[in-house]
C-alpha cells in the first residue's frame, strides 16, 4: 500500500471513529438536567409560547430526536399524560393520526412543539403551563419518532405490553406533507 493511500485510509478511519464517537455519545447521553435557568413555566396563566421559545424548542427537539433517553421519556409521557386517549398509540382516534405523512399544521420540530404548547382548534388542549418545557421537547421528539422522522437508532423498541403497533424503530421515515388547515377541518377528526 503506498504511503499516500495509507494516510488517506488512516484519515478515513479516524474520521469514521470520531463520527461514531459523537453519534454514540449523542444517542446515549442521559442528561438528568436541573431546569435551564429562565425556562419559562408561567404558573399563573398558560401564556402562549413566544417566538424565542419556539426557536429554542426547534433546536432542542432537533437534539432530543437523536437521544434515546429523551425519546423513551417522551413515549412514557405520551402514555402518562393520556395523549393516547385521543391519538391512540399514534394511529389516531378522536385526534388525528400521528404515524402517517399527513400533518395538519406541519411536522417540523418547532411546529410540533407549538401545537403541544399552545394547542390547536378542534380539541387539542394547550399544555404550556401544565407540562414543563423539558418534557414538551421530549414529547415533540417522540411524536416525530412516531412518524419515523427521529433517528431510527434512538427510536424505542417494542413495549413490555400488548403489541399495539410495530415499534417506532421499525417505522420507515415518512415524507411529511402539510395539509392546509381549511381542508383539514372538513376531515372527520
Amino acid at each position, binding site marked *: 500500500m503506498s504511503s499516500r493511500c495509507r494516510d488517506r485510509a488512516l484519515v478515513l478511519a479516524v474520521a469514521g471513529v470520531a463520527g461514531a464517537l459523537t453519534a454514540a455519545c449523542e444517542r446515549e447521553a442521559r442528561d438528568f438536567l*436541573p*431546569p435551564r435557568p429562565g425556562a*419559562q413555566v408561567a404558573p399563573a396563566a398558560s401564556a402562549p409560547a413566544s417566538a424565542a421559545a419556539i426557536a429554542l424548542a426547534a433546536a432542542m427537539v432537533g437534539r432530543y430526536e437523536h437521544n434515546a433517553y429523551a425519546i423513551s421519556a417522551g413515549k412514557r409521557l405520551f402514555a402518562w399524560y393520556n395523549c393516547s386517549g385521543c391519538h391512540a398509540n399514534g394511529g389516531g382516534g378522536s385526534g388525528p393520526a400521528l404515524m402517517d405523512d399527513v400533518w395538519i399544521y406541519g411536522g417540523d420540530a418547532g411546529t410540533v412543539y407549538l401545537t403541544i404548547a399552545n394547542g390547536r382548534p378542534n380539541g387539542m388542549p394547550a399544555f404550556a403551563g401544565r407540562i*414543563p418545557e*423539558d418534557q414538551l421537547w421530549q414529547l415533540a421528539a417522540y411524536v416525530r419518532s412516531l412518524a419515523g422522522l427521529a433517528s431510527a437508532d434512538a427510536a424505542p423498541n417494542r413495549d*413490555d405490553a400488548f403489541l399495539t403497533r410495530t415499534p417506532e424503530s421499525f417505522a420507515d421515515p415518512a415524507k411529511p406533507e402539510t395539509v392546509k388547515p381549511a381542508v383539514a377541518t372538513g376531515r372527520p377528526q
Partner: protein
Amino acid sequence: MNGVHDVLAPAGPQALALFHLWNAMLVACVVVFALTMAVLAVALWRAPRAGERTRPDLDAHPRREATLRRSVVWGIAGSSVLLVVLLFASFFADRALSALPLADAVHIDLVGHQFWWEAHYEPNSPERTFATANELHVPVGRPVLIRLRADDVIHSLWVPSLGGKKDLIPGRESTLALRADRAGTYRGQCAEFCGYQHAKMALVVVAEPPADYERWSAAQRAPAREPATAQERRGLALVEQTSCAMCHAIHGTRARARRAPDLTHVASRGWLGAGAVENTPELRAEWIARAQKFKPGVNMPPLDAAPDDLAAMSAYLGSLR
C-alpha cells in the same frame, strides 16, 4: 429515611427465626473454618522444610498413607454430617417462616415503580381502602400480608428487621407475610437493581400500637384538608394548574392522576422521594423545583417557578397532615 435496618436486630417472628438460623450457621462455619485452619497450621508447622533439589519421595509408606486416608475420610464424614444438620436447620427455619398465623391480617397491595412504592391498604373493602406511598404504618402484633406486583422492572421488598425479601416481578404476583412484635421504625430498601435511582428507593415500616394505627388509617382515609391561609389557597391553585396535577392525586381537589405518589397526606410522611430528601418546608420547596438535584434520574420533572410560588406550594403541601 432513618430506621432500624439490621438483620441482627430482629423485631418480628420472621426476622427472629432467621436470626437464630444465622447464629447456628455462623457458629458451625466458624468451627469448621477454625478446625481446618488449625489442621493446616499444624501440618505446616510440623512438616520438615526442603529445597527444590530435594529428591521427591515416591515410595508411599503404607502406615502413613493409612493414617492420612483415615483422617481424610473422617473429615469428609464430619463435614457431611454437619451439612445434613445445617440442611435440617434450614428446612425448619423455612417452615417457621411459612407458619406465621395470618388470622386478622392487615392486607396491603404494594406496587413497585421506578424508584417509589405505591401502597393500597385494605384493597378488598372499598369503603376502608386508601392509597399511600413509601411509608407503611402497621399495628404491632397483627400480621401484615403484602401482595406484591411490579409495574415496570423487577424490584424487591426487603425490611431486614422484620423478615426476608421477596421480588416484585412484572407479570407475576407474590405475597410476603410480616409481623412487627415491637413498636418502632424499620427501614427497608429495594434489593433488586432497578435503574438509575435503585439506591434511593427506600421505604419505612412504622410499627405502632393498634390504637395509633387506627387513628393513622382513619386520618389517611379522610380527603385533603381545606387550605386555611391565603398562601395555602394560592399553593392549592398552583398545584392544580401546573404540572403537579398531571401526575399526582390529592383527594378533594382537581388533582387526580395516579402516575406518581398520592399527596393527600404527604405531610404525614417524614421523607420525600422514597428516602431522597427530608420533608421540611425549605427542602420540600427545593424538591419541587429541582428534584433531579437530590435524585438524578427520577421521573419527577423540574419546575422553574418563582420562589414565592414555590413557598406557597410547599406551605399548602405542608398542611396536608
